[in-house]
């Protein structure tokens, strides 16, 4: 890891190495126009509307009334709000910790030339094709304490009170999102692992490195950019998880799995307090942005350079 990093740094010092080769024109601004337009229309405009809504009191009927900072002051004194942010971060961190190693292994394996690999990869990919709702309903039935798997394996699950206890419910949420999203991240790693030049492995083999050494000294460093991409996707996805909580736990038991996104739904659509809901949504946007920025900074993604140095 360190060897590659220092090589990259050295490479960037040379003009023309890390950046664009001289003589190739930069693409015009026109390319970005359609996407920018959609982004403004479907992301920025609603974001501004939500921000405005967060300063009002609105039940969904009639027109919103201006309420000043009311929603925000209540929010910052709301223990459930603070707990929900903490829970969102916890679930996200657990998701990253569990899914990253699994998907790297699966992705690297799927990038190889083994027999039956294509068939098995397709099978592993199935969970991603199902909607989160279908996945949640499926797991809910599977984990039913009296008629599902826990009833058949009491030695492992005890009374099967998985969704009704704090640790159990959090564990199930992590398990279900892992089951569903590992294929996506494995796909990212599969692509990245395929891009690793074969000569590196050939050279390593000549030097006497075994499979394990090759994995840690060639594959993993070469996957660095893919890891960052995948982690950012997991962070954003984790912080905004909603459907699995809605169907599996309803934020319960009590408020033990009331993550921020679900709390927003509860306030806005169950309590009919859309102003408070908007404030929570905006806060979530801020937190998600902040965490993404931290990930980008810490990982050095913003200074990212090619991984092909030393090859030519």
């Amino acid at each position, binding site marked *: 890891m360190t060897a590659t990093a220092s090589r990259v740094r050295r490479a960037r010092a040379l003009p023309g190495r890390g950046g664009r080769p001289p003589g190739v024109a930069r693409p015009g601004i026109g390319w970005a126009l359609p996407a920018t337009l959609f*982004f403004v229309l*479907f*992301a920025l405009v*609603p*974001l501004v509307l*939500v921000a405005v809504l967060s300063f009002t009191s609105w*039940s*969904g*009927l*009639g027109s919103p009334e201006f309420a000043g900072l009311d929603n925000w002051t209540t929010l910052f004194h709301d223990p459930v709000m603070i707990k929900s942010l903490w829970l969102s971060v916890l679930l996200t961190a657990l998701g990253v910790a569990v899914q990253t190693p699994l998907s790297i292994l699966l992705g690297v394996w799927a990038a190889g030339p083994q027999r039956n690999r294509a068939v098995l990869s397709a099978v592993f990919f199935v969970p991603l094709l199902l909607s989160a709702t279908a996945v949640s309903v499926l797991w*809910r*039935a599977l*984990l*039913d*304490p*009296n*008629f599902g798997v826990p009833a058949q394996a009491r030695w492992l699950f005890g*009374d*099967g*009170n*998985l*969704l*009704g*206890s704090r640790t*159990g419910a959090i564990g199930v949420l992590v398990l279900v999102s892992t089951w569903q999203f590992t294929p996506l991240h494995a796909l990212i790693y599969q692509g990245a692992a395929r891009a690793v030049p074969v000569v590196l492995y050939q050279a390593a083999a000549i030097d006497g490195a075994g499979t394990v050494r090759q994995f840690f000294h060639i594959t993993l460093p070469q996957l660095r950019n893919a890891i960052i991409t995948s982690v*950012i996707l997991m962070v*954003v*996805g984790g*912080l*905004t998880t*909603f459907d699995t909580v809605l169907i599996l*736990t*309803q934020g*319960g*038991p*009590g*408020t033990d799995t009331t993550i921020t*996104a679900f709390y*927003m*739904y*509860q306030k*806005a*659509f*169950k*309590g*009919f307090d859309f102003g408070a809901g908007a404030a929570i*949504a905006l806060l*979530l*946007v801020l937190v*998600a*942005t902040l*965490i*993404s*920025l931290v*990930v*980008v900074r810490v990982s050095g*993604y*913003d*200074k*990212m350079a090619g991984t092909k140095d030393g090859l030519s």
Partner: protein
Amino acid sequence: MKIRIRLARCVAGGAALVMGLSLTACGDGGSAGGSQEFHVLVYGDAANKVEKEIVATFNKTSDVKAVLDTVPGADYQQKLQTVINTPQAPDVFFNWGGGSIQPFVKAGLLLPLDDMIKKDPGLKSNFLPSVFNTAVVDGKAYGVPMRGTQPVLLFSNRAVLADAGVQPPATWAELLTAVSRLKEKGVTPIALGGGDQWPTLMWFEYLYDRVAGPGLFEKALAGDKDAWDSPDSRKALSMLKELIDAKAFGTNYDSVKFTDGGSAALLASGKAGFELMGSWEYSTQQDASPDFAKKDLGYGAFPTVEGGKGDAAGIVGNTNNFYSVTKKTKHADAIAKFLKLMYSDAFVTSQLSIGNLPTTTTTEKHLAGAANPDYLKYQLDLVSKAPSFQLSWDQAYAPENITPIHQAVQQFFNGSLDADGFIKAMQALTTA
């Protein structure tokens, strides 16, 4: 390179927004449009069978067609509130009368039915007045009863009780004895869909009613927060605690739901002895386990509490459900004809066939011909003799209190709130 940071930021913000958007955009209910049809939005459950029949009957003779849209029960209220003020709003919709339609009336979204009633007095006179009046707001009628009355009953599996040598309990002490006998037999004494939270609430509603009488809750609802801290309130809580600690509900009730058939299956499969549930349990069981519904499904009133202030005949639940009409509908005349069907003989008999007890004045004469006259007669007696009919707490309070009530109830059951904590949570509810 700076562009990359901005991109990440946008991805983050965008994703959060997309989620928010897809939530608000989830209204795909019926739209009246310009076509010759009107949409009827109903709570989706086993009782939809009758609603489908009624719509089919209506469409046979009408040029303007009715279209039935069902929304899964747990999401019904949210869905309704989000679509009712939009072009996708239904023409006719299911509700609980009273408090549940008051905000819509205030916002001027509902059509008063008085003109329809003037043309066809039967729209009012064919229903029991006490029930019809639940949907009268500020002296104007806004709804017509459309299902059955729904008292909460203590259901049981007769085979399981017989096997354990237990009689349906008439008193609280008998219930505790039954619980310990059933436990010895290795079955969960009482099935509870704690994952849905509202089934748990029913235990509070009945115990408070039996211990303190209906007055305590009425006072609390009117704004008297001290009512929650009264000795009666604490006594009801301590009795509940005793029942929970006796493992009457087993230990995994919060992982079980009623809405996905979990708790009902426990009762039907003989893994549990009792279930406290609204009268719709009968149609639910008939739908999911017809054999059990026919042979072993027992029912009875909630046990009396020795020394309690409440009347042993008091009940809790819902008086009935109603159809209300939105003001923007273009087919008021056709809808008037549709609502007429709610007191037709065909309607009464098909409601009776699924175990629902319609609240029309003609119900009693159809009872004898029904498939399950005993159950219906029992309900009718119970409802007509009840000195009080307590509306479910989560529907009696304003909607913003539903979540806090459900959370407090669940947390008291699983032990994360003690009596003081529960009382504090109830005192924090907003009152009129």
